[in-house]
């Protein structure tokens, strides 16, 4: 009986495995579609300006931020794209929702299922490189882009030429970026400053003075939150002595440079502030923006760093909880020992994109045509601002003034449709710095708080020289994707311990953690970067 049972179990198992293997291997093969849009003689490109002979479906990714009441794949604007652009060229434009918080996972899955949208995109260069590393992207023919998307290409060709190649092949194309550095600001409670009779701090020592005074007066602490990604905490601790090479080795949004001197300075300082009790004693529990916001709004802490926009709920909530609250923009220099507001300077590109390996030639051409269409000023303007008279009115400078509370059919998404137009530009721009600033005053601040933007703008003007651009490697640094998730976990553990430990233990602990961090893979990353730099496979932007 036993034997029999075992035998039949084996048979059933074997059968199951066979069925499974058949199912597993039965994945569809690639069709042998055309791979080039060049004409037979190879000199020019096929002309699709009258539309494609047969309907072509392109899949355009769009971030889904789960805004309540907003369907990113089916709304007034997606329909508008279809009728204005798609129908004209016999193109069916499909939007594919990519969860903003699950983007990598979403993309990886679709790549695995061979259903990735035609454009594979990421805001982070290292992540884009990862997709390339997974063989998910196809090399690009720049002349093809130029032919089908002349306006777009004219705009971006220098950037594409400089940053778009990996291991000698053209892989990426980009959205343009005209960085706005005064939208990420730190608020400080002006009424608290007044109460303790102090001026706006201009360097770290002064900020700590403020913290002490607040503590004494029983007001609250300096705010802070847990750093888990996009590592730029060390910038205020830079100085002139740091070489380009050092920047190349250590600057990285995805891996924290724990062992670097500015990091040590940052951590040591945080440790002192923590032990003195002038910084939020549970800052490490603020893992999300809402946590720090809660502290600020409720009056537990007096500073709050965030990305400001005219729809923000911070001010109303702050006033509801603290009717006398007043806020100012903190001088970015106040985070730096020397009062120099070093900051993360953006490269000249926004979104980094590639074309999926599964995309055949005609669809690729259609994608270029879509970018070209989106790049036309009137189309872009409508995508960014909506319908004149409904969504906005134009002021005397030609700047769109949003009509508050518009809820009609052509309502924009909560971030002004950015997730559609981010494929070509990263910021709304009128092509004129002064106009942009005027427009931004309205876009960035709720009515009555424009002065915050003004302050931020002035600080930025003062500190403009301190922007540091992260060098970009033109070959894959494999060890980053290998170790970054582990290093990230280590970083959080180490840095919180370093920040909260007894000051006397700091040095010993720091050394120990650095050693562990290096052994945990950071040394490999540094070595690989060093090697790449020696080969000259990296770019430093001016």
């Amino acid at each position, binding site marked *: 009986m036993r034997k029999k049972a075992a035998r039949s179990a084996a048979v059933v198992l074997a059968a199951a495995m066979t069925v499974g293997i058949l199912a597993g291997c039965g994945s569809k093969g690639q069709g042998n579609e055309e791979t080039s849009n060049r004409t037979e003689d190879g000199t020019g490109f096929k002309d699709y300006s009258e539309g494609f002979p047969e309907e072509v479906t392109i899949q355009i990714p769009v971030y889904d931020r789960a805004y309540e009441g907003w369907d990113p794949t089916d709304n007034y604007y997606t329909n508008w794209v279809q009728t204005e652009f798609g129908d004209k060229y016999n193109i069916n434009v499909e939007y594919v929702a990519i969860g903003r*918080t699950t983007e990598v996972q979403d993309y990886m899955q679709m790549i695995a299922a061979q259903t990735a949208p035609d454009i594979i995109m990421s805001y982070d260069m290292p992540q884009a490189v990862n997709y390339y590393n997974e063989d998910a992207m196809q090399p690009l023919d720049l002349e093809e882009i130029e032919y089908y998307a002349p306006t777009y290409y004219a705009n971006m060709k220098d950037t594409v030429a400089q940053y778009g190649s990996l291991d000698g092949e053209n892989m990426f194309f980009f959205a343009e*970026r005209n960085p*706005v550095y005064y939208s990420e600001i730190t608020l400080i409670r002006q009424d608290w400053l007044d109460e303790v009779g102090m001026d706006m701090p201009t360097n770290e020592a002064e900020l700590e003075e403020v913290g002490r005074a607040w503590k004494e007066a029983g007001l609250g602490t300096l705010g802070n939150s847990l750093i888990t990604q996009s590592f730029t905490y060390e910038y205020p601790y830079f100085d002139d002595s740091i070489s380009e090479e050092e920047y190349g080795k250590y600057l990285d949004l995805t891996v924290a440079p724990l062992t670097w001197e500015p990091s040590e300075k940052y951590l040591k300082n945080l440790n002192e502030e923590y032990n003195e009790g002038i910084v939020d004693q549970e800052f490490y529990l603020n893992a999300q923006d809402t946590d720090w916001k809660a502290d600020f709004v409720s009056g537990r802490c007096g500073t709050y760093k965030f*990305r400001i926009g005219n729809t923000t709920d911070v001010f109303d909530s702050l006033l509801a909880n603290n009717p006398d609250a007043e806020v100012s923009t903190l001088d970015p220099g106040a985070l730096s020992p020397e009062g120099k507001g070093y900051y993360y300077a953006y490269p000249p590109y926004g979104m980094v994109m590639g074309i999926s390996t599964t995309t055949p030639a005609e669809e690729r051409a259609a994608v270029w045509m879509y970018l070209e269409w989106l790049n036309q000023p009137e189309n872009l303007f409508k995508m960014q601002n909506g319908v004149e008279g409904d969504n906005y009115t134009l002021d005397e400078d030609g700047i769109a003034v949003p009509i508050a509370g518009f809820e009609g059919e052509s309502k924009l998404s909560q971030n002004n449709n950015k997730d559609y137009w981010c494929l070509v530009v990263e910021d709304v721009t009128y092509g004129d710095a002064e106009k942009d600033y005027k427009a931004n005053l309205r876009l960035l601040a709720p009515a009555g708080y424009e002065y915050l933007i003004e302050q931020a703008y002035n600080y930025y003007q003062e500190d403009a020289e301190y922007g540091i651009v992260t060098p970009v490697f033109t070959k894959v640094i494999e060890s980053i994707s290998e170790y970054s998730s582990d290093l990230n976990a280590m970083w959080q553990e180490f840095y919180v311990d370093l920040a909260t430990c007894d000051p006397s233990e700091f040095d010993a602990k720091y050394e120990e953690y650095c050693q562990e961090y290096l052994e945990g893979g950071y040394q490999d990353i540094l070595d690989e970067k060093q090697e790449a730099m020696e080969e000259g496979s990296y770019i430093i932007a001016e």
Partner: protein
Amino acid sequence: MTAVKRSVKGTKKIVGRTKKDYVITACFYIILALVAAICLFPFLHVLSKSISDEAYVIANKVVLFPKGFSLDAYKKVFADSSIMRSLYVSVVVTVAFTAIGMFLTVCASYALTRKELKGRRVMTFLIMVSMYFTAGTIPDYLLMNNLHMLDTWWCLILPLCFSPYNFLIMKNNFSSTIPNSLIEAAVMDGAGHFTILARIVLPLTKPIIATITLFYAVGRWNTYSDALYYIKQRVDLRPLQLKLYYLVVSAQESFQAEGGVTGVLTNPEVLKAACVIFATIPIIIAYPFVQKYFVQGTMVGAVKE
């Protein structure tokens, strides 16, 4: 049935209650009341948040009682067609899932408790293995892809609908509650197994049937991790809990590299709370319908008759 009632009534007559008994009973009541209160607490918390003033919720000041009052969030929820669509998806999926799952589980549990079925140990073993030996997210995903079930209704209904866990519980219950003699007698009388299952076994095992039905329904209603993987492109197939997951989790963004003009605005906290309540109420309502089957035993009468 009548026998049960009689015996329950009989209880009070036979055993006179002592003072000590009353004290113990009182203790039980108090303990249960306390525990129940603690269990109610988080629900009250979310409920209070959902009707409070946004400013206080953002400040994390709402713990147990609402601060301020507004039903705007609920109005928004009910006005949002995509949330209503998700509710529809969840209801359809849950009903279909539970029905199919119960059918399979009852069949398997009954058949595998019958000693005359050859290979039942092997089959039980195979089912049990599949519970502990899981392939993992990626292989499961690849399988769904090969079966062409991604972004369909089926991927929410079929893959999980025969649960080895529920099966083992039900099988155990069947084998310990149904007297073998009863079934053998029926077989002798020439009754088919489907008839026996429907006429004899099911009426006898109402409590476990109710329990497992509840497990299936609640399990399906609350699970979103499979939908998170399998439903990507068909936004209209997002079940309610997945929708909720996106609403709640989308707050957690702070992307440095994502500069630009437009501020990052997340969904209002009050709205999220309202959605949580909205997504939870329907399945909680299902419970009282099942509850009555736990109140009394069904066994005695049947055996006697």
